[in-house]
């Protein structure tokens, strides 16, 4: 089995070194470096929070984290890695966001959720199936495809191997027979 080494690990190290330098420059007042750093950090934060928070919260938490980085930038020690400093703040803001979820209004669901009654639909489907089963297979298949599943005559013809005319004839005869059966049952009742 071939083990593929991750080439991005190196670029990650490079990126961390870049961030260290950018943050150190930002602390010295380099506005361009600071802008670049924040935009790169915002990109890094998105997947970080996507894995940990509901999608609706991600933008707000990224914003909170960027504001916190800005407000607490004086606590960054340039001799230490910026990545660890950023990760600590991101984690803190994540925990803060999770705690804020507790205060969100919650809707309590009943144990028994009301759903519409399907009895009539099930009875109809069962009755139709019983009626179709009394027809010849070719007739019931043609009715099923064209009248119930919405196939065209040509499509039903291809699906069943019957000619288009035969499909029409089978539908006509099948429906006629069903009608006769229903009439006779009504007369009996």
């Amino acid at each position: 089995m071939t083990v593929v080494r991750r080439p991005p690990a190196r670029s990650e190290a490079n990126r961390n070194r870049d961030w260290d330098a950018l943050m150190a420059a930002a602390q010295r007042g380099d506005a361009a470096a600071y802008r670049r750093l924040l935009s790169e950090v915002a990109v890094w934060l998105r997947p970080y929070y996507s894995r940990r928070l509901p999608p609706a919260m991600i933008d707000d938490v990224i914003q909170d984290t960027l504001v916190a980085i800005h407000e607490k930038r004086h606590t960054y020690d340039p001799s230490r890695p910026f990545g660890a400093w950023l990760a600590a703040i991101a984690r803190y803001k994540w925990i803060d966001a999770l705690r804020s979820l507790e205060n969100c209004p919650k809707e309590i669901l009943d144990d028994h959720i009301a759903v519409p009654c399907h009895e009539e639909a099930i009875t109809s489907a069962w009755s139709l199936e019983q009626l179709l089963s009394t027809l010849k297979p070719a007739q019931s298949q043609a009715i099923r495809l064209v009248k119930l599943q919405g196939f065209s005559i040509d499509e039903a013809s291809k699906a069943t191997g019957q000619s288009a005319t035969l499909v029409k004839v089978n539908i006509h005869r099948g429906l006629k027979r069903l009608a006769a059966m229903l009439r006779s049952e009504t007369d009996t009742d």
Partner: protein
Amino acid sequence: MLGIVELGLFLAFGLMRPDMPMALHLPSFWWKLVSLGLIALVSGAVAILSLNPIRSPRVGLRWVLVLMVLSLTVGWMIDASHGDYGTLLVRLHWRDGLRCLCTIVALSVPPVAGLGLLMRRGAPTDRGGTAMAAGFAAAAWGAFVFVFACPFDDPFYVFVWYSLACTTVTVFAGIALPRLTRW
């Protein structure tokens, strides 16, 4: 710095105990002074270091707890070696004890406020732990300053009333500071 100013003002107002030369010869006086000073310094350092988001105060807090246990052990040894303080109830001197408690709490207010301000400006990511360390530091510093005025050197008295005062301050700091220093 604020603590040193507080100590200076406290002594400048002539609040030092009158029998200080005698007290300097008592082991229990030095026990109070050194223990509280050490606890204040260590917990203060822990609180300040943990204002950096990547530093956790938890390990430092464990060391503070070890220091407290050691201090109490030394106090118990001093108490056991003396042995002629009388019954526990008499040794409590509860009226004076309550006064001590209130004074220590009052002396802890400036360091709590100062450390709270530092917490607000810093970026602690374990606010509960940092607040606890700040509470220990402020309480121990308040008690340390009060050692210069307190005429009681009985280890049992010190244990009960100083512990009560320090617990009060620490609990207050543990509850209030995390809320005030949210960032």
